[in-house]
């Protein structure tokens, strides 16, 4: 029997296992790459200088193996306001409600100014400057976590780079595939962070049905080898995993959050707009639960809700209040029960996926 884990994604990237770690931690990325998987470092918040330094740091540690960097290319941009103008537009009812939460849970003040970063693809010029660095540094895979990377395809391909696009709808996938992306990541509702409304099982199968030879990578709720096997059965050529690595040994996440992730199940995640004004899945916390209650005011749109929640979030993090802290987490978090080295996680996923195929076929894969 052909090795079911030797997929066209492996051929495309020259990797051993079709497992992609999406991580903000360079140590996790290097460990996964050197274990035979692939890693994409999330750099949306970073300046071009930081991105260049991180690319060099990884390159020095992976012995010629490929790696990727993910940016958040915007897909829509509202007319611009200054931070002060935005703050002035927050209605009093929502301000009062945030203050009530703060008093009820004794949420401490942040230790410093709210760290509302100015980077992160918030407008076209910033995203463009970040992209230029990826091209200059010849980052082997450029991934776009939101907007279409089609406009950069020709230039990236001329440089021998590959471009991946992450989508939440089938029509977005078709656009990007027609434009010539090298792989498309189909992300389902089960995922951590901001997601679309379509479930992973549905979107992966649907995108795979229209993808032709373009590899499809399944994202959303993937934390085990059994998920990997299922994704391949749906027509994917690999998986894009995020939550799995947050609690890995190498992860630089606060230990309090690691422990919360290890203890959490899918029921402990909350999908709402109350953090940022856009739908986002995180570990439930007092902030998410209070905004769901009857009598809570309407959640504000982005970016106003984020301005409102930042005081709570930063106060909780600065003072390491376990009862208040939260982190993005997908619905597969229930399988994240041990703080293993990233390398071990890769091997465990591979072994479990192969065992799953053995069960299905009745013969060793």
């Amino acid at each position, binding site marked *: 029997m052909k090795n079911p884990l030797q997929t066209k994604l492996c051929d495309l990237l020259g990797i051993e296992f079709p497992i992609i770690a999406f991580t903000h931690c360079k140590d996790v990325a290097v460990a996964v790459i050197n274990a035979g998987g692939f890693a994409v470092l999330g750099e949306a918040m970073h300046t071009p200088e930081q991105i260049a330094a991180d690319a060099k740091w990884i390159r020095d540690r992976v012995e010629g193996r490929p790696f990727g960097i993910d940016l958040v290319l915007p897909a829509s941009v509202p007319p611009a306001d200054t931070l002060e103008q935005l703050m002035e537009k927050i209605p009093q009812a929502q301000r009062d409600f945030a203050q009530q939460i703060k008093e009820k849970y004794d949420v401490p003040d942040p230790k410093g100014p709210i760290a509302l970063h100015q980077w992160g693809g918030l407008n076209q010029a910033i995203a463009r400057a970040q992209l230029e660095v990826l091209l200059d540094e010849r980052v082997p895979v450029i991934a776009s976590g939101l907007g279409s990377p089609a406009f950069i395809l020709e230039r990236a391909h001329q440089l021998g780079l590959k471009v991946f696009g992450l989508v939440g709808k089938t029509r977005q996938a078709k*656009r990007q595939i027609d434009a010539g992306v090298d792989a498309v990541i189909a992300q389902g509702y089960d995922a951590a962070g901001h997601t679309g409304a379509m479930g992973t099982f549905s979107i992966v199968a649907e995108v795979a049905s229209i993808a032709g030879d373009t590899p499809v990578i399944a994202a959303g709720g993937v934390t085990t080898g059994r998920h990997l096997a299922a994704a391949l059965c749906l027509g994917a050529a690999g998986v894009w995993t995020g939550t799995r690595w947050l609690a890995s040994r190498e992860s630089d996440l606060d230990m309090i959050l690691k422990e919360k992730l290890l203890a959490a199940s899918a029921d402990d995640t909350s999908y709402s707009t109350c953090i940022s004004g856009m739908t986002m899945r995180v570990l439930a916390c007092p902030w998410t639960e209070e905004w769901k209650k009857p009598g809570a005011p309407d959640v504000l749109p982005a970016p106003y809700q984020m301005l409102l929640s930042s005081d709570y979030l930063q106060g909780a993090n600065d003072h390491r209040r376990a009862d208040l802290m939260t982190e993005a987490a997908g619905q597969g978090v229930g399988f994240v029960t041990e703080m293993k080295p990233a390398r071990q996680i890769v091997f465990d996923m591979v072994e479990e996926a192969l065992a799953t195929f053995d069960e299905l076929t009745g013969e060793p894969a």
Partner: protein
Amino acid sequence: MPPDAISARPGFDATLAGRRAECDGGSAIPGTRYAGREEFTGTLSGEYVDHGDPPWRWYRLCDLERKPPGYPADSVWCEAQSLFLIDAAAP
């Protein structure tokens, strides 16, 4: 190169002016490492801006019939690949 040094060249496409479209939009969220999706339906004004080289084209979607609850403006700039024409003349 500082971000604000990147060129932005405005233009107008009369063939798109007045066409209804949906935008599968979204952007990064200030203060987080994440991005959020937002959906809009409206009418294209025909205005566009090309950012940088190769050009990254953005269209203005006006008279928004559908926008996120509380969205404060009546127009949004949408990246060309994220726009889907929905009126009868759509190709």
